[in-house]
């Protein structure tokens, strides 16, 4: 364990997504073997046409799995997710650089 440690996550959103999923599992929204089975299927489907490198593509598959799971159990409606995503984009675009970005309402 010498030298500078490698960052655990390459991108902040990888870490956020990871933590969100673990938190939902720990609070009982789904069990881990069930999660792993779903995630394996998404990875397999994504890997049909090209080799996944285990970086962004891995977490994109993870995100798709979580979005689908939460859509299916009625927790997060896809339209609602898309609308909230766009609201965040607008918030970033209108917030002056350096100021904290907040959603309206």
């Amino acid at each position: 364990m010498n030298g500078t440690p490698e960052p655990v996550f390459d991108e902040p959103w990888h870490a956020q997504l990871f933590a969100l999923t673990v938190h939902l599992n720990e609070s009982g929204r789904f069990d881990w073997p069930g999660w792993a089975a779903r995630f394996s299927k998404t990875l397999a489907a994504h890997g049909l046409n090209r080799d996944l490198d285990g970086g962004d593509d891995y977490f994109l598959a993870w995100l798709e799995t979580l979005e689908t799971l939460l859509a299916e159990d009625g927790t997060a409606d896809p339209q609602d997710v898309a609308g909230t995503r766009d609201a965040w984009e607008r918030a970033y675009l209108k917030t002056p650089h350096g100021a904290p970005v907040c959603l309206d309402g």
Partner: protein
Amino acid sequence: MPHDHHDHDHPHALLPPDPALRVKALETILTRKGLIDPAALDEILDTYQNRIGPQNGADVVARAWSDPAFRDALLKDATAVVADLGYYGRQGEHIEVVENTPDTHNMVVCTLCSCYPWPLLGIPPGWYKSDAYRARAVREPRRVLADFGVTLPDTTAVRVWDSTAEVRYLVLPMRPAGSDGMDRAALAGLVTRDSMIGTGLPRSPE
């Protein structure tokens, strides 16, 4: 880059990439519904970014090298032994330790996704999650080992363990020659992450 974020004509906050916005959207919706606790999220992040990592596994290996009774107990019931040391949690519910010997070298993969003993090794490296490793580790383990710079004698068999959501494996590497008399902390310093996945060997003492 589709957009020059440092352009002074657009002095707004840096726009995160699309998936980051989608993650924020999920977080917002779940928070509004009272399904997530932001403090618990921060706690998980801190744990996995700062407190859990291969140093935990290295501690377990160094103990096994220096204490035969600990080694025996570890090989018999690793889950209980490492939990006693405080290394437990998500993806650590059932851990098995497989021991390298002159006859057998063990190597771990998760062919379906990326199951990994988080409490002992932290978050897996990118290559562990890649299709290339997941496919080739089973098919041609010796070639994969060669890519990692590990060459084993022909008399050593390579055994590949496929981790699942139920069972996760940790390799107990062989104690390096020349490490007699080293204390536990020094021994832990010889244990690399890859040596506990089986794609590497421990460092040799200076």
